[in-house]
């Protein structure tokens, strides 16, 4: 069950000033890289737009590093701060 391995899950966190097309742009990059979106959540915190996206990279052909760079490039174009991390760090840190 390659797809369900936790090491294949990534969390993308996007924040900055709200504007049109943020979700579309990030989702477009993920589609290009064959990253499946499993969940999306978005909120406004202290006037900032924050979006969380859970992706699965098990079917992606490119490496994590290349995918991350592409997402971050999209973030720069949107003037948003973007973090791309393997989900394991959150699972490990917040669960006993």
């Amino acid at each position: 069950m390659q797809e369900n391995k936790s090491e294949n899950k990534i969390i993308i966190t996007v924040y900055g000033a709200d504007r049109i097309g943020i979700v579309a742009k990030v989702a477009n990059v993920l589609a290009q890289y064959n990253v499946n979106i499993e969940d999306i959540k978005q909120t406004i915190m202290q006037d900032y737009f924050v979006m969380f996206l859970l992706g699965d990279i098990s079917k992606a052909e490119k490496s994590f590093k290349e995918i991350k760079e592409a997402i971050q490039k999209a973030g720069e174009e949107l003037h948003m701060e973007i973090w791309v991390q393997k989900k394991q760090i959150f699972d490990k840190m917040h669960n006993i």
Partner: protein
Amino acid sequence: MSYINADSILETIDMIRVHHLDIRTVTLALSLRDCCDADVKIAGEKIYEKITRYAKNLVAMANEIEEEYSIPIINKRISVTPISLVGESCKEYDYIHLAKVLDKAAKDVGVNFIGGFGALVEKGCTRGDIALIESIPEALKQTERICSSVNVASSKAGINMDAVLKMGQTIKQAAQLTADKDGIGAAKLVCFCNVPGDNPFMAGAFHGYGEPECALNVGVSGPGVVRAAIESLPEGTNFSDMANKIKQIAFKITSTGELVGREMAQRMNLPFGIIDLSLAPTPEIGDSVAGIFQAMGLEHAGAHGTTAALAMLNDAVKKGGIMASSHVGGLSGAFIPVSEDAGMIEAASKGCLTFDKLEAMTSVCSVGLDMIAIPGDTPADTISGIIADEMAIGMINKKTTAVRIIPAPNKKAGDKVVFGGLLGEAPIMNVNTLSSSKFVQRGGRIPAPIHSLNN
């Protein structure tokens, strides 16, 4: 059901980007016991080959993991078998040559420090041990990345006062030979009591006996995270609740270190050794153990109550951290280096924090008198007296203690030394000028203490 826990994600990101959570070091611990040879040149070749073979991917792997979890891995380092053991089979001792070999190997694999240029002499010195100790000042002068540690006492063996006397002279000489850099040689030299053989932090890291062929040890950090956690509590929160909060945050810090350590070890095909859950500060603002004392309610580090605050912090960090990992080791507590902690530097500069208070604090912290600059004209015998006191605290309390002090050449109390980087800067602190000479020159050993009647 949603897989995304927004609060957890934001908390983690905040810990990293605002409060300086990082993996302080991934340290490859490596035995060099199979590198002994009668010919020092051949021993050197074996050492170089083994280190570069095992560590060739260390930096690349650390960078890869740093990228995947977006958590900085600040230092990549190597610790090796105490070199006195490796070098004493040589017909002619040439520890300087071995130091240069270690330095070159460290440079070629891209690590900033390599630890283990040292000896374990708590009960007595072999000929090789003496030769190594005598070579330390020159070795530190001629190399860039070597760290040296000498264990001169233990709760089981007592204190080797001959070694303490020698180390006072060695520290002084190490500083003098590097006078052009404020005596930085002494900043890479540490004396221990009850030294752990799996510590990943410099300058005291080495690969102890009883350790496997190799292992990957990890040291975490996060004083800023602990401070923020305490500050998030309602004002006047009592000690029980504050201790619980520290435990929770220590768990999170340590879990992250464990994840990184295990991933690194797996990818490098090495056994995972231990995680050292020490709170290691840096000179950066907001990454300070002294800042934790302020968050707890003390005006500054050094105020009455600091020792109690440190004791509680140290204990809570251990209790929280130990839940997060199956193998906790090394020094695992709170470090209180002066020059490497912005809050401690400030407290010392203002005169709030004295040498004597620091000594008291070492009885409850994880290590000891660390990165303290003292006047350059401090006699070697006084330094030996300082070491003897610190070793006594460790020996009696069955804990690790250490001394890393820098008698800064040509500087006096009130002046400043600047090492830069993680080693930071420090004001020169006053030490007691009364003579310790006749005491430390008696020679022999202070006997091991009785392990009952603990009063």
